[in-house]
């Protein structure tokens, strides 16, 4: 049997509990909304490590189960996210889009038309919107030939070229194109129509080089060896000749700097031809780039051999890879050009593979902005 005050006390406690539950639930709703936003922020800032991955796995699980996250919210969050974060958000957006019944045409159209949004996010919005609508696809692409999204721009120009336009339109498309293979393709079509474009200039390929070599790389062991010419170049005091691996009539012969110009329309310097198919060797190539101003730029190297590149004495890329492929824009690094003369040194390493397909020794280099548009040296 309970005493009366005990009953009152119990009722009071029940009321307090109910109130606490009510407040808690209410706060829970608010917290849930805040949490979803916070969870998305976590995905935006993902870094490449296990801890970040484990957190993201928990985060995406919560977001997949949440009912207050929208496709547009996920796509919008891709702006400013890390490259890893963008892929997690893209994965989330795909699930949300499927669950939504693929019906958000108006919202996606608005999102796609906002060119300030992330280009990768806009591309998938474009895919969804046009998946079963060829007419809309054509209409949208007609207006995307200068889109800031490289993927949308590439697609728009590809479709326009496929439609076999006349020469003025092709020249306009060439001006808009940034993707290297697409530029080459358009120049090829123009050539067939009788209009010759200076491809070397179009790309901003560097054609005038000073070469020295060959230095010893037998066994492909000297990729990281600092040869005297390399050390001297870093100090700004190169000599006219250096001890090389060449032996003529039984005597060692010094390597001397030679001037070489790219002769082909892809700006390739053919070291195999210049150095008589020498194998197991290192050659250095140096040039100057006279920049109009201090500016951000990209060095874009194509090379089928091991390579290192320095700009003004700073190593900017290193790829110890042999005979897999060579194409324009194969290796891209962001750099800061100073106003005036910039010194570029490329170290090229040939191995001793004997296969017929492993005989090339060649490179090409160009300077561009971040979209791939050529930055030309002063006076060019």
């Amino acid at each position, binding site marked *: 049997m309970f005493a009366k005050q005990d009953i009152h006390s119990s009722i009071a406690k029940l009321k307090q509990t109910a109130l606490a539950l009510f407040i808690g639930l209410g706060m829970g709703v608010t917290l849930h909304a805040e949490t979803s936003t916070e969870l998305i922020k976590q995905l935006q800032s993902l870094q490449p490590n296990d801890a970040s*991955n484990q957190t993201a796995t928990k985060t995406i699980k919560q977001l997949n189960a949440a009912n207050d996250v929208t496709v547009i919210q996920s796509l919008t969050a891709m702006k400013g996210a890390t490259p890893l974060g963008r892929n997690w958000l*893209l*994965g*989330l957006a795909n699930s949300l889009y499927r669950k939504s019944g693929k019906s958000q045409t108006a919202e996606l159209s608005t999102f796609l038309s906002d060119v300030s949004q992330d280009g990768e996010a806009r*591309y998938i919005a474009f895919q969804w919107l046009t998946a079963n609508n060829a007419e809309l696809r054509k209409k949208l692409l007609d207006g995307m030939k200068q889109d800031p999204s490289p993927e949308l721009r590439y697609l728009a120009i590809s479709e326009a070229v496929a439609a076999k336009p006349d020469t003025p339109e092709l020249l306009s498309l060439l001006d808009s194109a940034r993707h290297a293979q697409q530029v080459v393709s358009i120049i090829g079509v123009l050539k067939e129509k009788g209009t010759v474009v200076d491809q070397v200039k179009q790309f901003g390929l560097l054609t005038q080089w000073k070469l020295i070599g060959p230095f010893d790389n037998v066994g492909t062991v000297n990729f990281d060896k600092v040869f005297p010419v390399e050390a001297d170049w870093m100090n700004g005091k190169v000599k006219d000749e250096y001890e090389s691996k060449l032996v003529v009539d039984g005597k060692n012969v010094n390597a001397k700097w030679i001037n070489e110009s790219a002769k082909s329309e892809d700006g390739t310097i053919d070291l195999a031809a210049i150095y008589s198919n020498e194998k197991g060797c290192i050659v250095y190539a140096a040039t100057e780039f006279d920049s109009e101003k201090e500016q951000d730029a990209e060095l874009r190297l194509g090379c089928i051999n091991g390579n290192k590149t320095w700009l003004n004495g700073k190593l900017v890329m290193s790829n*110890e890879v042999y005979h897999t492929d060579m194409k324009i824009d194969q290796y891209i690094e962001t750099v800061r050009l100073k106003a005036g003369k910039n010194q570029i040194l490329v170290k090229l390493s040939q191995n001793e593979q004997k296969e017929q397909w492993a005989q090339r020794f060649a490179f090409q280099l160009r300077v561009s902005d971040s979209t791939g548009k050529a930055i030309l040296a002063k006076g060019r």
Partner: protein
Amino acid sequence: MRFKLRNAFASCALTFGFLPMVFTSSLHADWPQFRGPNAGSISLESKLPTKFGGESKANVAWQTKLPGRSVGGAIVIGDQVITTSSSGMDQRRLHLISVNDKDGSIRWQQEFVARGRTNCHPTSAIAAPTPASDGKYVYAFYSSNDLACVDLDGNLIWYRSLSTDFPKAGNDVGMSSSPIVVDGVCIVQVECQGDSFAAGVSCEDGSILWRMDRPKQANWASPVVIKLPSGEQVVVMQSSQDLLAVAPKTGKTVWTMDVKCSSIPSAMAAESRLFVPAAGLTVFDLSSVGAVPSKLWDNNKLAANACSPLVVGKRVYTISRTVLASADLFSGELKWQARLPDAKSIWASPVVAGNNLYIFTEDGKCFVVNLGDEKGEVVETNDLGESVLGSPAISGNAMYVRGVSSIWKIAEK
């Protein structure tokens, strides 16, 4: 019926806290990875038509056009046929697509953007490895070293850019080693001239459980799971410099051998033997407990340039260019060879249903070869009219062929 059976397994996993690894060659079994259950490329009980395709599309249950291109194979999990594609500028859009077995309609799609290199040979694709599944999740790997895990509804579980973790991992001809899943670990072999490694990635959260350096040589072969006499499962990896077995959960080396293996066709195990594309074909004994496998025989007439070997009954089969060879499983003695008439390049590892071998060529032809004791007879030459570079999958009485730009279900009508 098949779906219910899989759900029963899922219940079992929930109840007992493990996932049953029921990869057999029985009818309606899943085809969960490159070359199917146990990487055997075989489904003896399946009955497939020998004549299909052509202009009439004979025995084509459905064909579904997919975005971009792929040179990997499809897998089959329950009533889903799952495959990858790469599309768009530089093939940087990475797709993972589930197709309904019943009618070929798209069930779900996932999509990512390649964070690694997307250079590859024109005949290849960034979607080159075949995905893998443990029946709970699907693991999709790409030439760009992007690795994604989704559930069977396509929801993202985790994603990992191994090229971000190891920036020099890549090969501008294109990578194609397919992942495998064992003991809760997804194992990838990323061998190239740059950051060359193999890794075990946690199936649950994508953490890298272990990583080991591998020879700095391009390698396109896939790892394979074998069972030791002790019952322990180990992962065998091959390269042009070695052959080794590692523990899947730790990456600890169980044994290693100085064997110069081929870098394209992959090893497989059957009848307590390990068949390795090396010096033609080299066969090792897996029956000794706790020992480094000893060599049983090798035969340089059983060399394979691209296709992985397979075992049917007491015979092992290899393909060199356009010549199919059959040899005795126990002695390595060459029994017969058959030239495939007017065959173009063959990249897709062939599969066996019943006693017929299905060999797809790059130009979309399929030679159906009846495997006899004395000879191999081409009983039919079919044409899909689409390039095929990925190894087919078989489930029930159907074969799933991943063409470069579409997927086909071949089954008797």
